[in-house]
């Protein structure tokens, strides 16, 4: 691992699907990076391509891929060059793990939780089953699930517990990055907070990075150092977390933050009029233009990505001259 090199660097990643209606531009020229032992959150509305981005990074592609190009560097190494077999062996779970969306259902109902959690270790680290169970036991300790639950089946566990088990399953091979796809949706707030605390604690104790995918800005704000905002398959803003929450630059980011309820402010919740554009035939130019309050003529052209006060923002507003 080279010093200063981010754990994950994605450059111009493109993932298009082909459907009967046409080509869906789910991930369109996305570039971002995740520094070592830090967390980034990908914010965005439903259907903006967040989960597709996660799949594109892990190369978990459906059968109808139209275009899949770009560069993915893991610890400085271009993993896009690896063939399918090597990728599965050297990247998945070894470099990058994933806690899938709806992780509560991501457990095989006919396997004991312990079997399930130890399986990645057996498959990737080449350890014996007994050793893998020992590792699973340790992971259960980390994520705060009592050891005796190793012997249980998934249906005997609560939703929060299953979520923790899924995290343990992602952790067991000690990857450098974990992609958490909506890890706290469908859980009550107390469980959400407790899981977020667990994740935070793990990050303090282990050299691990997170890529958090969520639309829940409030819960994630406590955990992450970086924020990326995704809109219609593109990243429209990337910045440090504090800067972002104080002063988002992209009009969409602002609208997004304004839509978060605040307890002591007498202020009507805002929403963004209109609907996100279809990824089938996205409009030329800025994709947010139709819903943007500050739109002007130049928005009809593709906006450049600019660096403004440490933010990377893709908007014509910040182009001077």
């Amino acid at each position, binding site marked *: 691992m080279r010093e200063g090199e981010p754990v994950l660097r994605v450059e111009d990643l493109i993932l298009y699907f082909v459907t009967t209606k046409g080509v869906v531009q789910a991930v369109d020229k996305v570039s971002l990076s995740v520094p070592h032992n830090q967390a980034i959150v990908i914010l965005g509305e439903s259907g903006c391509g967040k989960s597709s981005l996660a799949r594109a990074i*892990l190369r*978990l592609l459906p*059968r109808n891929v139209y275009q899949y190009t770009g560069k993915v560097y893991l610890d400085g190494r271009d993993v896009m060059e690896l063939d399918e077999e090597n990728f*599965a*062996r050297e990247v*998945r*779970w070894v470099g990058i*793990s*994933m806690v*899938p*969306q*709806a*992780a509560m*259902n*991501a*457990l*095989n*109902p*006919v*396997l004991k939780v312990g079997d399930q959690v130890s*399986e*990645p270790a057996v*498959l*990737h680290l080449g350890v014996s089953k007994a050793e893998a169970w020992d590792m699973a036991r340790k992971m259960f300790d980390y994520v705060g699930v009592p050891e005796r639950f190793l012997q249980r089946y998934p249906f005997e566990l609560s939703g929060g517990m299953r979520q923790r088990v*899924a995290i343990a*399953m992602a952790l067991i091979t000690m990857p450098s990055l974990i992609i958490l796809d909506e890890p706290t949706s469908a859980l009550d707030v107390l469980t959400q907070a407790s899981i977020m605390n667990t994740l935070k604690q793990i990050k303090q104790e282990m050299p691990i990075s997170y890529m958090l995918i969520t639309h829940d800005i409030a819960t994630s704000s406590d955990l992450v150092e970086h924020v990326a905002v995704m809109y219609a398959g593109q990243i429209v803003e990337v910045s440090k977390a504090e800067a972002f929450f104080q002063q988002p630059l992209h009009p969409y980011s602002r609208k997004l933050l304004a839509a978060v309820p605040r307890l002591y402010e007498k202020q009507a919740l805002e929403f963004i009029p209109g609907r996100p554009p279809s990824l089938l035939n996205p409009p030329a130019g800025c994709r947010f233009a139709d819903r943007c309050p500050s739109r002007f003529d130049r928005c009809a052209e593709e906006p450049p990505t600019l660096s403004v006060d440490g933010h990377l923002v893709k908007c014509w507003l910040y182009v001077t001259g």
Partner: protein
Amino acid sequence: MQTVKDALREIRRYPSAIVGLLIVLMLVVLSIYVVIAIPYREAITLWRGGEGTWRSLPRTVPPAWINTFRSQKLPETIDLDSRKGAAERQEAPLGEGKSVTLLYTFDYQADDFPREINIFFETSYKERAPFASITWYTPDGREIAIADLALQAGSTSYRFAQDDKLLRRIRRQVGDVPPEVGLFVAPNPPENPRPLKGTYRVKIQATAFDPETQIDAELVVYGKVHGIAGTDHLRRDLKIALLWGAPVALAFGLLAAAGTTITTMIIAAIGVWFSGVVDNLIQRITEIVLMLPLLPILIMVGTFYSRSIWVILGVTILLSIFGSGIKTYRAVFMQIRESPYVEAAQAYGASDWRIIFRYLVPRIVPMLIPNLVTLIPSYVFLEASLAVLGLGDPQLPTWGKVIQDAVANGAPYKALYYWVLEPSALLMITGLGFAMLGFSLDRIFNPRLREM
């Protein structure tokens, strides 16, 4: 272990499951007993033995237990063999040779006449064949001369009903009746004669011309009932076939059902998982096989190739693998394939086969087990149907073969109902047992089928 215990506890809640399980267990125990008690080779030898093996049994008689339900008892076979000491033997020197007297005594208490009477001689001598004269003594003190005959070396059969001289003598002395009736009634019998009850004696007086002559004779007074299962047209004891039918039926049913359902399921899983060309190929093969008629193909295989039960079993399995099950399981697997946990498994690098066997297949097992259990009888019936159509294994005795023999020999028209009903009842009990067990298992494994 725990799961088995749980399953058993669940089963106890369904009376039909208990009955079904008992029937199945009984069949299994019976099969194991039969296979040990009458080994395969022996069963085949017995069943293919012909008249020699079975000469002391009557033809086509019902089982003995029907006497329980009759006021007029039918006779059972009386088999007296001098080699087994069932005759009083007297030997005295006579000139250069000797005289041999065999005296048979038996008690006759049945309300009906025997089916036939035969004597089988076993003789060995040096130069001249010995002579024998047979005399019949009735309980009321009459003495009827049966026959005088020369005993050839080896076996000589004397069949009372086939001796014209005896027939004429009985017509003169008793009346116009066959010997097996005439020898058991008083002279001038009424329209519906009844046998005289009491002690009968048969004396065989033989004259031998050298002292080394050996004479033995087996007197068989054939009854009208036999054993627990009766006999067929070749005097064979149906017990053998009915007993051996159980392991054959179970083996055929189990192998066919397990062989087809499990392979079908795995093929369906493979198709769904690899999709694309593989799936297409499997689906097209299935559609073609679904259109092939199973029975005519089996008949052709049986006629032109081999009627061995194992060949038929193999063809049945081969043709059933790509059956409608593929479509059903495919539908279920398609759904499972999209579950998050399968995707997760793929994400953490489980191989294709690991996903198929550890993630897809186990999910369908609860659906498969009841299915398999209820499928068993249909294959048992298929085997029986093939046998009835004349495609049964020519060597093995099976239930279907017994029915075929019965039908071919006109059992329904000769009122020999036991011959058809016994194997049919066994088939039905087998079907019932597996069906009851299967339907209950279905409820246990698929709780959604239960009423709330």
